């Protein structure tokens, strides 16, 4: 019989914690508003901090009532997740490490536990210990969620910056009717090489370009992978009916390529972007004349 009773009682401590949080919502929110985690984010008005605290207490109460105190995916948390992410973002912008944020969140626990202890002062010790353990577990879950939010915020920032870098890194320039160029600057990895290849080929179609110039003046080193990507780009451009010229190979890079034993024999190379442009223009049938006799040329 006692076992059955225990089974019936299951979930009651959780519900009790939920009730407690609900009842003391105002007090907890007021206390939390003075903690670093809230105070440092809502610097302008204390009322805002209290509001945020109330929302958080509500969420915790809901999770406790549903009996899923250890589950970070509990329904109650979904409402505050965004708010926590915003707060974490503000904290990491201020230069705090995730562990410091975690400590701030840990500091939210004592005020609540103090309230609970005060309320259950006359209750049996067994019951008090059980309830306060439960509350600690719940606050631990909250900490996990905050950490998750902080990390995903950082990840989002990195992703955003990577996108920006990609966009900046691959401008396709139209040099002449039928001639496009990509001046590559900085280290090439395979993801970037792929983007370069795609944007260059897209612009060949868009501009109906007969010539595509890959200028690698700004590329510090070339390894076999990058060289292979260059060859692939050249081959793909040829398949589409355009000719690809590689320009700006510096002496050191030329040496590396020879040392690696790579055969760039099928690729048209020129010393500088200017030479490559001159080559392409000549192939297109334009005459390039020295400046001394200017005006005699076609353009």
């Amino acid at each position, binding site marked *: 019989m006692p076992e059955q009773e225990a089974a019936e009682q299951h979930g009651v401590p959780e519900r009790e914690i939920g009730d407690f949080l609900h009842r003391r919502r105002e007090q907890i929110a007021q206390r939390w508003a003075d903690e670093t985690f809230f105070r440092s984010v809502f610097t302008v008005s204390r009322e805002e901090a209290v509001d945020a605290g109330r929302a958080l207490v509500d969420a915790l109460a809901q999770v406790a009532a549903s009996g899923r105190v250890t589950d970070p995916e509990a329904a109650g948390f979904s409402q505050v997740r965004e708010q926590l992410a915003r707060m974490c973002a503000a904290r990491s912008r201020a230069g705090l490490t995730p562990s410091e944020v975690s400590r701030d969140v840990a500091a939210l626990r004592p005020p609540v536990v103090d309230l609970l202890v005060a309320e259950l002062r006359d209750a049996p010790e067994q019951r008090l210990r059980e309830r306060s353990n439960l509350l600690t577990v719940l606050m631990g879950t909250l900490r996990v969620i905050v950490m998750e939010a902080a990390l995903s915020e950082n990840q989002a920032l990195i992703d955003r910056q990577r996108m920006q870098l990609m966009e900046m890194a691959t401008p396709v320039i139209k040099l002449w009717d039928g001639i496009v160029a990509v001046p590559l600057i900085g280290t090439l990895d395979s993801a970037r090489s792929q983007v370069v290849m795609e944007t260059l080929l897209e612009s060949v179609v868009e501009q109906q370009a007969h010539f595509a110039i890959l200028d690698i003046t700004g590329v510090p080193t070339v390894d076999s992978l990058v060289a292979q990507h260059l060859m*692939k780009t050249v081959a793909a451009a040829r398949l589409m009916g355009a000719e690809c010229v590689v320009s700006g190979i510096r002496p050191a890079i030329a040496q590396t390529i020879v040392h690696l034993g790579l055969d760039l024999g099928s690729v048209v190379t020129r010393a500088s972007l200017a030479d490559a442009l001159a080559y392409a223009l000549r192939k297109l049938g334009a005459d390039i004349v020295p400046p001394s006799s200017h005006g005699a040329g076609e353009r």
Partner: protein
Amino acid sequence: MTGGFPQHAAGHVPVLRLGDVLLVTLQGDLHDSAAEQLQQDIGEAIAAHRSRGVVIDVSGVEIVDSFLGRVLAEIAAKAELLAAQTVVAGMRPAVAITMVELGLTLPGLRTALTAEEAVRGFGGTDPVLRTARTRLGSP
């Protein structure tokens, strides 16, 4: 303009005759039997019309596999034996990248940006030179 061709199964690719150039437009999937038939048709058409060139327009092809690459190479080799030049025209970037990844760079095969340019190329010496001259010449 078209050489009369007998009834064929679905997926058949027609070979059009434009002067002394043959134009083949590939669209979507090319099945084994259709590819076989196409190679035969092109060979017969070159022999019958003494064509100087074959333009294969692949601008309608969005997905490529090694099979298509091999078919293109085989058509080119066959045409070469019959003294006709093969030009592949209008390959999409994604298709070109896939071909290169598959190692099918089709060496020795001529390419052009568009079918129009490829066809025009057979009127003169070099397609690129000709079109570029007209473009640069106009104000």
